[in-house]
């Protein structure tokens, strides 16, 4: 769909990582992926597949959840980044938008956005310009700029989280479930924003998404994760055509979209997991 898109340069490379929580719970069992510069890479998969864990492993947020990467390596621009702390990583240009919003409840919407520019040494003027850009993307936020983020609705909080990340002018954004809880219109809008940032500003995206449909429409390349392993990957176009993906992730059978009323009450089997 997009012709601009990824270059050959691999920005982020995850090699065969294993992640353990609490010293005992093995969650990722060897995940490898490559994120090309300037591309939108999607990480798909069911609940508990390990998408969030993968993103956190990259952004080094695992540590604060008592998880650790026990095997494998993570490289950004060919440089090992596993041992950096998250702040250093943000300085390098990688920022994560966390699943479940995680706004700063007691800060106002605007202050929330400003925290995004924390690592930048930018001038007041630049920051204001970016702030306005975010408000352009999300007019709703402008209306609510003075209210505490804790009192905004779920969708508004999602906008705050994304806006906050944009404020750091990152090179790479790790987006965890950006569409969750958003109205369909807005989902479309957010993905358009992603696309815009990608094309205009050359921001690289790695996004974890449940909404496979949209994700594959906007992404260049996709990885499908199941139970902590990559089970399938390929260019988004190919994935969209894959019959399995169609059936299990896009909810389409050969006859087009099924009604949710018609769902059979038996568990279907995925061929690759048999």
């Amino acid at each position, binding site marked *: 769909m997009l012709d601009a898109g990824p270059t050959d340069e691999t920005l982020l490379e995850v090699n065969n990582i294993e992640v353990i929580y609490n010293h005992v719970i093995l969650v990722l069992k060897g995940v490898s992926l490559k994120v090309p510069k300037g591309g939108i890479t999607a990480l798909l998969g069911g609940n508990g597949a390990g998408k969030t864990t993968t993103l956190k492993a990259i952004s080094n947020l695992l540590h604060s959840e008592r998880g650790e990467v026990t095997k494998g390596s993570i490289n950004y621009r060919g440089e090992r980044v596993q041992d950096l702390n998250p702040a250093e990583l943000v300085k390098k240009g990688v920022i994560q938008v966390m699943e479940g919003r995680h706004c700063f409840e007691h800060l106002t919407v605007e202050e929330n956005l400003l925290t995004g520019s924390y690592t930048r040494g930018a001038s007041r003027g630049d920051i204001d310009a970016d702030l306005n850009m975010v408000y352009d993307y999300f007019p709703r936020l402008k209306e609510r700029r003075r209210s505490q983020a804790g009192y905004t*609705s779920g969708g508004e909080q999602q906008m705050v989280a994304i806006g906050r990340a944009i404020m750091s002018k990152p090179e790479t954004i790790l987006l965890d479930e950006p569409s969750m809880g958003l109205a*369909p*219109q807005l989902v479309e809008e957010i993905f358009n924003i992603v696309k815009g940032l990608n094309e205009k500003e050359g921001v690289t995206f790695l996004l974890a998404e449940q909404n496979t449909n949209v994700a594959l429409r906007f992404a260049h390349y996709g990885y499908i994760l199941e139970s902590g392993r990559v089970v399938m990957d390929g260019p988004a176009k190919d994935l969209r055509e894959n019959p399995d993906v169609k059936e299990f992730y896009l909810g389409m059978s050969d006859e087009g979209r099924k009604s*949710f009323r018609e769902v059979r009450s038996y568990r279907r089997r995925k061929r690759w997991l048999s």
Partner: protein
Amino acid sequence: MSENKNEGYVTADGRKIGGTLMEMKNITLRFGGVKAITDISFDIKEGEIRAIIGPNGAGKSSMLNVISGFYVPQEGEVWYKGARRPSMKPYEVARQGIARTFQNIALFEGMTVLDNVMTGRLNHMKANMAQQAIWKGAAEKEEVANREVVEKVIDFLEIQSIRKTPVARLPYGLKKRVELARALAAEPSLLLLDEPMAGMNVEEKEDMSRFILDVNDEFGTTIALIEHDMGVVMDLSDRVVVMDYGKKIGDGTPDEVRNNQDVIDAYLGVSHD
């Protein structure tokens, strides 16, 4: 749909819907200067699946909070089972048979899945402190009886394998399911679901849809549902309320709503099919 207020109707797929179970009359809710809900009225009939949709910040969750007694509207009346509901504490509302799930999952993170679902049964458990301190006898009998109900719900939602797992460790989607289990365990007459399928992929949404339909079918539970996935809403619900900026902009069957120009402008963008 032009049926009499208190009468039921028959849905397209032939299910019989009863009389009015709950009616919201002219509800207005303000937070300081913010008007979350402005003069909204609608009803929920026995046995139907009623969806509430609308853009982000429209006031949908606030409406559920009004129904479950957590927010007290400045104006308006809530009628439940044919009587006007006096102002009540949320736990009293729950005891009237209204159970719900939450948009930002509100599970008890420090407990196991089983315990969480058991909390759904609290209003059915009557043993007093002394009996519980002794345990043997009344308390234990009651525990086992309720455990059986809960196990049925657990089976029903296919979460047997995580029974003893602390919920904090579960992935998002399973948490949603556990929340549903907790609400179902209460055997409510009205079940409120706030975005039950957010953060799920199609396959999981299908599962969830099936559970919702089955609950509605098997136990005749009335369901009010907020959801952003139009596919789900249109397929599952019998009638839909559409809200925007705290106002009601549409109310009717999925087909009516889908073709309502206001709704398209405010929410759907393009008409979904």
